[in-house]
C-alpha cells in the first residue's frame, strides 16, 4: 500500500497532476455529500475485489492510460485488477468479433470505434448498458459529454451500447509565425488578392500551401497531411462531403462516390502532393507530427495530440521520450480545417463485451473512467491519446492554463465537436473502408482518379448487394439522418 503511494507521488510529480491526489483519496471521502458517478462506481465495484478485467485497447500510446494511470489507481481503490490487451487498430474489430463468435469471453471491456458500433451491437457482441446506467445514476453525467459524441457514438437502435470516451477530431495546426509575418502577408495578398490567414476553403489551402512552399522550400513546406491510406480515408470522407458529395443514393443505395465531386477531391488531393514534402504519400500520424514539430511544414491537419505536443505539453515525460523535441512550441496556431466541418475520425467508446463473465465490474470501470472527475484527468495525461470530449473538459481552467494558448486549442476542439462530421457508419463498415483505403493507395500510385473511383463504387455496390440492399439502405438512412452526417 505504502509503496504504491510512493509510486503515485512519483507519478504525480512526473506528470504534474495535482488532481490525481484527490482522486487517490476518493475512496476515503465520506458519504456526507451526494456521491459522484466516479464514487458510486468505486463503491459498487468493491464487491468485485480480486477480479481481473481484460480490457482491449489499441496498441501504442492508448494503453499507457490504463497501464500507468487508471489501471493501478482503480486496483488500489477497488481491488480489481486491469489487464490491458493491446491490438493494432485494424485488428481490433477482428479480435472482438473472433472472440465473440468463439464464445471464449476473452475480453470484458472493449474500446470500440464508434462507426463499428452497429456491427458489433447488432451481432450481439456488446451488452446493452441502459440498466447499468440507471442503476448507477450515470444519466446526468452522460449529458455532460459533448453532444456530437453523445448522440452519435453511444446508441444503436435506441439502446446504449457504449460510453463515448474520446473526442477525436481532425483539426488544422499552423505556424503562426509564418502566417503573421508582415512580408509574407503583403506578398501573399498582392499575389492572391485576399489576406493570409488559416484557409477556409480547399482552394485557399492549396494557394497558401503553394505560397509557403515557394517561399521556404526545402526548409519548410506549405503543409504535410495524413496521406497513408488508413488515415487519408478520413480526410477524403471529410472533403468529399465538404464539397457537397454524397456517399450513396438514398433510394437505390447505389454508391455515388464516383461523382464529379469525388473525382475533383481525388484529383486535388493528388495535386497538392506536388508542393508538400516529397514522400508525403507515406505519411501517417507520426510522420506528419514529427515534421510539424521539427518545423518542416507550415500546416497540418491531424488528431488533437499534435496540438498539445507541438506546444511542448508533456515534455520530459518518459513515455513520450520518443517524440523529438518541438521546435515550434510558441508558434502553434489552431483552426478548423477548410470547410469548417472537421472529420470526427475514429474516436473510441467503451463497451462491455456480451461474453464477459464480469459485465458489471467492467461497466463500473468504464463509468468510473468516463466520469467527469476521472476523465478530466485522463484527457490531461501528457502522453494520453484521449482527447477532450466533455463540455467541462473544454472549459477546464486547469487545462486552459496548461500552455500559453491552450484556451484557443480547446475552443477549436469544442467548435469541432459541434460542427464535426461523423465517419461513415454502415453494416460491415470495415469492408467499405478497406475498399476506400485501397482506392487511396491506388491514387498515390498514379492511377486515373475516375477509374479508381468507378472501381470503388463497384466494390461498394458489390458489398451492399452481398449484405442486402434493403438492410443496408435502412442503416444508411439512419446514419444519414443524423445532423452530423452531412454538413
Amino acid at each position, binding site marked *: 500500500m505504502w509503496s504504491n503511494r510512493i509510486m503515485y507521488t512519483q507519478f504525480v510529480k512526473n506528470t504534474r497532476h495535482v488532481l490525481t491526489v484527490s482522486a487517490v483519496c476518493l475512496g476515503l471521502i465520506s458519504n456526507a455529500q451526494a456521491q459522484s458517478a466516479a464514487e458510486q462506481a468505486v463503491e459498487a465495484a468493491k464487491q468485485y475485489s480480486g477480479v481481473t478485467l481484460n480490457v482491449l485497447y489499441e496498441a501504442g500510446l492508448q494503453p499507457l492510460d490504463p497501464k500507468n494511470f487508471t489501471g493501478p489507481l482503480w486496483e488500489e481503490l477497488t481491488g480489481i485488477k486491469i489487464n490491458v490487451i493491446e491490438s493494432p487498430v485494424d485488428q481490433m474489430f*477482428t479480435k472482438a*468479433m*473472433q472472440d465473440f*463468435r468463439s464464445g471464449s469471453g476473452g475480453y470484458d471491456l472493449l474500446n470500440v470505434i464508434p462507426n463499428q458500433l452497429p*456491427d458489433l451491437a447488432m*451481432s450481439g457482441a456488446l451488452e446493452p448498458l441502459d440498466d447499468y446506467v440507471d442503476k448507477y445514476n450515470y444519466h446526468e453525467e452522460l449529458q455532460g459529454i459533448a453532444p456530437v459524441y453523445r448522440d452519435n457514438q453511444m446508441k444503436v437502435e435506441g439502446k446504449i451500447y457504449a460510453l463515448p470516451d474520446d473526442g477525436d477530431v481532425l483539426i488544422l495546426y499552423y505556424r503562426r509565425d509564418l502566417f503573421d509575418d508582415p512580408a509574407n502577408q503583403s506578398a501573399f495578398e498582392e499575389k492572391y488578392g485576399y489576406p493570409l490567414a488559416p484557409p477556409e476553403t480547399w482552394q485557399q489551402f492549396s494557394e497558401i500551401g503553394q505560397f509557403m512552399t515557394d517561399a521556404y522550400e526545402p526548409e519548410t513546406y506549405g503543409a504535410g497531411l495524413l496521406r497513408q*491510406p488508413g488515415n487519408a480515408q478520413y480526410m477524403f470522407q471529410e472533403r468529399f462531403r465538404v464539397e457537397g458529395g454524397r456517399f450513396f443514393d438514398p433510394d437505390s443505395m447505389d454508391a455515388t462516390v464516383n461523382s464529379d465531386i469525388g473525382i475533383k477531391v481525388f484529383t486535388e488531393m493528388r495535386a497538392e502532393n506536388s508542393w508538400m*514534402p*516529397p*514522400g508525403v*504519400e*507515406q505519411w501517417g500520424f507520426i*510522420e506528419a507530427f514529427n515534421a510539424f514539430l521539427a518545423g518542416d511544414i507550415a500546416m497540418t491537419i491531424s488528431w488533437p495530440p499534435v496540438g498539445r505536443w507541438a506546444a511542448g505539453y508533456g515534455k520530459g515525460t518518459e513515455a513520450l521520450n520518443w517524440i523529438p523535441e518541438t521546435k515550434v512550441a510558441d508558434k502553434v496556431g489552431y483552426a478548423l480545417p477548410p470547410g469548417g466541418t472537421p472529420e470526427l475520425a475514429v474516436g473510441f467508446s467503451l463497451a462491455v463485451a456480451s461474453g464477459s463473465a464480469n459485465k458489471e465490474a467492467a461497466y463500473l470501470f468504464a463509468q468510473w473512467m468516463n466520469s467527469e472527475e476521472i476523465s478530466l484527468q485522463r484527457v490531461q495525461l501528457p502522453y494520453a491519446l484521449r482527447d477532450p470530449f466533455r463540455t467541462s473538459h473544454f472549459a477546464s481552467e486547469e487545462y486552459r492554463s496548461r500552455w500559453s494558448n491552450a484556451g484557443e486549442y480547446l475552443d477549436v476542439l469544442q467548435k469541432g465537436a459541434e460542427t464535426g462530421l461523423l465517419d461513415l457508419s454502415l*453494416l*460491415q463498415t*470495415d*469492408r467499405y473502408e*478497406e475498399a476506400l*483505403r*485501397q*482506392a487511396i*493507395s*491506388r491514387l*498515390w*500510385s*498514379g*492511377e486515373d482518379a475516375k477509374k*479508381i473511383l468507378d472501381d470503388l463504387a463497384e466494390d461498394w455496390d458489390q458489398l451492399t448487394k452481398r449484405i442486402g440492399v434493403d438492410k443496408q439502405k435502412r442503416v444508411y438512412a439512419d446514419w444519414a439522418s443524423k445532423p452530423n452526417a452531412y454538413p
Partner: protein
Amino acid sequence: MLKTLLDNDRTFRYLLVAPAVFFILLIGLYPFIKLIIASFQNISLFDDIRSFQGLLNYERLLSDDRLWHSIVRTLLFTAVALPIELVLGYLLAVLFLEKIPFKAALISIILLPTIISPIVAGATWRLMLDQRFGPVNQIISWLAGTDVKLLWTVSASLVWPAILIAEVWQWTPFMFLLLYAALSNVDREQLEAAQIDGASWWMTFRRIVLPAIMPVMFIAVLIRALDLFRVFDLVWTMTQGGPGTATETLSIYAYQMAFREFEISYSAAIAFLVIVLLTVFVVAALRRVEVSR
C-alpha cells in the same frame, strides 16, 4: 539375415510412425474436413447463418477477378524471384569454393538474412527503403548526384521491385548454402581431367557439375517455389498488399477474405482450391524425384 531384420516385429514399425500420423491427423484432418464442409455453407462472422448453399462459393471462385489476379501475381513473383536467387546463389557458391581468407566468418554473415524472420526482414526493408529516413534513397542520391526520393512502398511501379529486393536478399543465401554444399561434393579430379582435355566451361558445367548438383538444386527450387507460392509475412509487413491490391498475393487475399471480411465459407472454398492445386503439383514433383533417383 537382412530379410529377417526387416520383416520381424510388425508392431514396432507401426508404433514408430504412429505418433507422427496421429499429430498430422489431429491438426491436419479435422480442419481439412471442416474446410470442405464450410465451403458449401454460407458462413460469415457477421451473422449466425449456417445454411448450405451448394456450389455457390465455387461458382464465385470462377468469376472472382481479384482471386485470379492474386494467383497470377504470386506465380509471376515466384517465376521472377526464383531464377534470380538461383543464379546469384550459384555465383556466390562458385566464388566461395575458392580459397578466401576468413571464409567461415564471411559465410556466417552472409547467412544472416536467411535465419531472420520474414516479418523482421519486411520491417528491415521498410526502414531501408523509407523515402526519407532510409539509406537506400540516400545512396541512390549520391550515385545520381541529385536528390532522389523514390516511394518504394507506395508507387505502383516500385512496390514489386522493393519486395523482390527484400525477397532476394533474404533467400539468396539459402540457395548459396545448398549449392555451396553440393558443389563441394563435385569430384575435383573429374573437373581437372576435363580441363586437361580442353573441355569448354559450358561443357564441363553441363556434363559434370550440373548432374552432380541436380538433386540438391531440385530440392532447393522445390522448397523455395512452395514458400514463394504462399508468401505472406514479407509482403504483409512491407505493403499489406497495397497499393490497392497491387501486391496482394494469394495468401494475403485469403487472409483478407477470412479475417478482415469474415467471408468464412468463401475463403474455405479458396483454401480448398489452393490445396488441390498444390497437392497435384507437389505429388507430381516428388514422384519425379523418386523416379529420377
